[in-house]
C-alpha cells in the first residue's frame, strides 16, 4: 500500500507543527506560535483540528502562576506524519533538481 498525503496534516503550518512535535516529548503552545509566527487564534484552530483527529494531545498545567498549554504528538499522529512524509518523499522523487 503506497503512502498518501494526510489531508489533516497537509494544511500549511500543520505539517511544520507536527514535525516540531514529532521531534520532542512536549512543547509549549507559545513556543510553537513563535516558531510558526502565527496568531494565537490561528494556532488554536490548528491545534483543535489536530486534536479532534487524534493526532495531538493537549495538556494544560499551571506554571509560575499562569496556565500553560503543552502539546505532544500522539501515536496515531506520529504514524500519520510518517506516512505523510513518505508520500512527500515519493512526490519529491519526481521533482527535478535545480
Amino acid at each position: 500500500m503506497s503512502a498518501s498525503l494526510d489531508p489533516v496534516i497537509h494544511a500549511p503550518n500543520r505539517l511544520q507543527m507536527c514535525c516540531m512535535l514529532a521531534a520532542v516529548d512536549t512543547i509549549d503552545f507559545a513556543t510553537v506560535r513563535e516558531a510558526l509566527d502565527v496568531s494565537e487564534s490561528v494556532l488554536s484552530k490548528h491545534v483543535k483540528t489536530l486534536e479532534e483527529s487524534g493526532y495531538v494531545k493537549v495538556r494544560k498545567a499551571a506554571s509560575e502562576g499562569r496556565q500553560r498549554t503543552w502539546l505532544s504528538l500522539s501515536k496515531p499522529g506520529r504514524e500519520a506524519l510518517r506516512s505523510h512524509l513518505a508520500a512527500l518523499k515519493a512526490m519529491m522523487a519526481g521533482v527535478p533538481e535545480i
Partner: protein
Amino acid sequence: MTRDEDALRMLAEVEAANAALAERAKAPVWYHPALGLLMGGLAAVEAAPLIWQYAYFPVFGLGIWLLVRAYIRKTGLWIYGFRAGRTRIVALSLALLCGGLAAMSGWLFHARRVVYAPLLTGAVIAVAATVGGLLWEAAFRADLRDGRGL
C-alpha cells in the same frame, strides 16, 4: 498550486520546523556542567559516611528537578533523552559508561580499599556527562537535519 509546488512548499515547512527546533533546543550554558556535577556527585559520595550518602539522594533529585525546570523555562519544550535516532546512541553510551565507571569505582573502593576511587570516578563522570550532554545536543541537531528519530 501544482503538485510539484505543493511538494516544495511542504518540504520548506519541514525544513523550517527543523531549523526552528534546532535553534530553540539549546540548554543554558551552565546546564550540562551542572548535570555533570550532579552525576559525578552520585559516584563521589560513595566515599562519604552513609548518612551523607542518604542525604545526597534528595539533593540529587532536587537538582535534577531544578535542571529540568530551567531547561523547560528557557526552551519551552522537553525532549526525552533516549528518543530514537543518534540521540539514543549517545544517551545509551553515556549511561553505560557512567554506570560501568560507578560500578568499577564501587568495587575498587569496597573490595580493593582504593579510597580515592569514588572521588576520581566522580570527576571523570562529571566531565563525561558534560561532554555527553553537548554531544547529545549535536546528535539532536543532526537527527533534525536527517529527519531521524521521528
